[in-house]
């Protein structure tokens, strides 16, 4: 998922009896499935948690353009290049929908940018891994967008109106992303022995980082329980990870590729696969800024922001001058 380990500041979920009258009325609206709109009363914790979560989600869409953008100029055919360009442009759109949703909560775009650039806000750990060969672009669409879809589909029902509406728009566009990735994988898996090897190598490298996208097991997490009560999180991390594995294993089998997990096997009793957990120490290292590409990714964002400053300011100066002339 694109928002991992979002803090809620909560010390535990309050019961209806422990809540103030305002809090209780709010919780009852959420429980009834009503949408909460920006100008309406909401607990401060709800507002802050949403800013963190939607902001992190938006940053992930924007930073997520970098590993794929890396291959636009090197796509194997003009058609693949046009498709990848359209896919990466969609991700820019997703970022913009989400930033606007966050801004309805009273935070400015500049503040969100500032916090991304100074490291106080995160983006998904997955985008700190490199895309080394063309099959990686297939694996990213198939697995990374596949995992994102797993998380985003239920979030269409989230309690905060602007977030829910952004998710609905995004989900409409995501299935193209996953299919174009799987299409690349099919081509590679049915290609030359070298291409098959590249496809297998891409799966080997992206499998565990994709499982990490859902975040650590959250059975006992206070944050998770509060977020679920507020309906800004719909499923637990483990539920979504299980669904993702169950969905992906047959897709890998179709490709004739092997999931890099010796413990992977069907469990009749639970009606799902048993599988190995990713290496969580690696996850925490990546989150802390020590993944293979953290510096490069953040560096590219800061550079784009700084190099574009004269242009943003120039357009604003032009608009102000022009506006004055019209008013006169």
């Amino acid at each position: 998922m694109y928002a991992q380990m979002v803090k809620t500041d909560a010390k535990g979920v309050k019961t209806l009896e422990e809540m103030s009258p305002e809090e209780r009325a709010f919780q009852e609206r959420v429980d009834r499935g009503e949408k909460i709109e920006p100008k309406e009363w909401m607990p401060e914790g709800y507002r802050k948690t949403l800013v963190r979560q939607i902001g992190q989600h938006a940053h992930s869409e924007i930073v997520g353009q970098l590993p794929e953008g890396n291959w636009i100029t090197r796509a194997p055919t003009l058609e693949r290049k046009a498709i990848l360009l359209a896919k990466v442009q969609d991700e820019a759109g997703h970022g913009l929908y989400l930033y606007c949703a966050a801004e309805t909560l009273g935070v400015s775009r500049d503040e969100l940018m500032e916090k991304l650039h100074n490291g106080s806000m995160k983006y998904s750990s997955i985008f700190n891994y490199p895309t080394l060969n063309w099959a990686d672009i297939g694996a990213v669409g198939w697995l990374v967008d596949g995992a994102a879809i797993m998380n985003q589909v239920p979030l269409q029902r989230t309690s905060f109106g602007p977030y829910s509406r952004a998710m609905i728009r995004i989900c409409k566009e995501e299935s193209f992303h996953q299919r174009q990735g799987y299409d690349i994988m099919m081509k590679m898996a049915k290609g030359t022995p070298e291409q098959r090897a590249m496809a297998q190598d891409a799966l080997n490298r992206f499998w565990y980082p994709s499982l990490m996208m859902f975040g650590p097991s959250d059975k006992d997490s206070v944050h998770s329980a509060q977020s679920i009560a507020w309906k800004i999180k719909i499923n637990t991390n483990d539920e979504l990870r299980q669904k993702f594995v169950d969905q992906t294993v047959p897709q890998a089998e179709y490709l004739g590729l092997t999931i890099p997990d010796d413990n992977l096997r069907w469990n009749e009793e639970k009606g799902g696969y048993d599988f190995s957990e990713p290496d969580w120490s690696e996850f925490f290292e990546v989150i802390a800024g020590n993944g293979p590409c953290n510096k490069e990714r953040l560096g590219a964002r800061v550079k784009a922001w700084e190099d574009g400053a004269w242009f943003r300011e120039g357009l604003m100066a032009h608009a102000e001058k022009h506006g004055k002339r019209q008013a006169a």
Partner: protein
Amino acid sequence: MSSQWPLWEIFIRGQHGLNHRHVGSLHAPDAEMAIRNARDVYTRRNEGVSIWVVKSADITASSPSDKGPLFEPSNSKVYRHPTFFDIPEEVGHM
């Protein structure tokens, strides 16, 4: 240091002759750029045939706390809905 571009609300009329509908918002320095950006952000898949942009600051909204009194007058007038009236089946569709 940085002067953030103002926020614009975007309205799009779809293919089928319906009203312009609010689709979201974006930042742009002026109206012309807002329309260009709206094309890229909100109509990448032929979603529209016409775009309106309005500065968010120019929109006056009803206040959520007035929701009760503001909409109350229509609450009590159930006879405005056709289902209020029972028409015998023999009369046929009406």
